[in-house]
């Protein structure tokens, strides 16, 4: 077995600021599958998703100095970067958002069965726990996180007032946090 160094988030950030390629390789191994999962659910196309993922990681490397630790966790920065890139790609390519993905949470859980990476996380146990999330809680997280919907679009999709999105999302994430 290859000996792979493990980093804490602080060590990882510090190393990446020093342009450490080994740290970047580690970053990729641990976060690329999760980012790929998000991108794939937005574009619904394996090759396109991987193209965007590649572009995203190159941007992460090139623009790492832009990451501000006070504004949030590293993963949040990366996922926002990847999501924005995906939205831009979809717009430029005249893609239409496919509501099917977001609304149908089954497709999300089916897809996740193909996954077999990210050794840093107990994904199997976590996925089991996530089954306890109520469907409406899963859907609202998926719409924002996996489909890149705006608040407006989420409100329309679920059929709730715009002002309710905030409280719904909060409840859903509180439930999610209980399962970790």
């Amino acid at each position, binding site marked *: 077995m290859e000996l792979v160094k*493990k*980093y804490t988030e602080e*060590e990882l950030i*510090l*190393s990446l600021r*020093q*342009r*450490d*390629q080994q740290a*970047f390789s580690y970053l*990729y191994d641990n976060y*690329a*599958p*999760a980012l*790929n*999962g*998000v991108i*794939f*659910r937005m574009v619904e196309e394996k090759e396109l*998703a*991987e193209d965007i*993922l*590649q572009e995203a*990681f*190159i941007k992460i*490397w090139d623009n790492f100095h832009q990451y501000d630790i*006070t*504004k*949030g*966790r590293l*993963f*949040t920065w990366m*996922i926002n970067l990847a*999501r924005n890139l995906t939205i831009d790609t979809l717009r430029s390519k005249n893609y239409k958002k496919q509501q099917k993905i977001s609304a149908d949470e089954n497709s*999300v859980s089916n897809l*996740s069965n*193909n*996954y077999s*990476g*990210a050794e*840093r*996380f107990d*994904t199997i146990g*976590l996925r089991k726990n*996530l089954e306890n999330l109520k469907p409406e809680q899963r859907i609202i*997280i998926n719409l*924002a*996180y996996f489909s*890149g919907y*705006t*608040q407006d679009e989420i409100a329309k999709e679920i059929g709730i007032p715009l002002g309710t*999105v*905030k409280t719904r*999302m*909060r409840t*859903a*994430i509180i439930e*999610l*946090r209980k399962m*970790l």
Partner: protein
Amino acid sequence: MQANDIISSGLLELYATGLTSSEETVQIQQWAKLHPEVAAELAAIEKGLESYAQAHAILPAPSVKTKILAHVSADKKVKVIPLHTRVNSVAPFWKYAAAASIILFISSAIINVSLYNKVDETAKNLDQTQQTLASLQQSNDEMKGSNESMKEDMHVIQSKYSEPVVLNGMGVAPTAAAKIFWMKNTGEVYIDASNLPDVPTDKQLQLWAIVDGKPVDAGMIITSSSGAKLKIQKMKTFSSAVQAFAITIEKKGGSPAPTMDQMVVMGKPPTL
């Protein structure tokens, strides 16, 4: 805005899921710098979503990493500076494993204690239940017994052959009364002694049948302190004609002849 209001507003969740407007985003980043509690809450929310994304991860093709690393190694603008912070740090996996095993151990200890207490309590409950059951069984047996004797009594009273003879109070006990059920078919004599007076412990009530003008012993009435007097008692059998029945107070165990001045009740069968 107070830190608590920010936290409960739901804005942090929207921010973490990329739903806030650019103004809101700037605002939230300021809040996070201003209030450590807000920053901590935001980090917890982000961690939650990060795990959510990890749970839904999809492994990309290996070629993606190759291409990215090719770009990275082509990057000549910067040189790699080795870090010293990495050495001697315990691998996170083992940290987690150790933490997890401690948590497991503690939880198992807690569970054991609580289970032990429960077992103890259950045993006590079982004990109590068994005692209750036993006492219920006992009273049930008693009920059965009294039910049986009641049935017997009813049979004596209801039988079409039973002929009631009312015995009325005499000089010694004017308010006393007794009833005899004389079975015409078998000659059996039963007495309902409920309304007979109590007698001293060294005395006993004795029933007499007057046959051919002479008193014949018809048996002793049991008047124990346990209340057996209440029961309808079977006395001696008389198939021949009886002119009258009488009860006298006699010494315990009975007398061969009645003490006439101690007569409690007397009555005659209806004339045939």
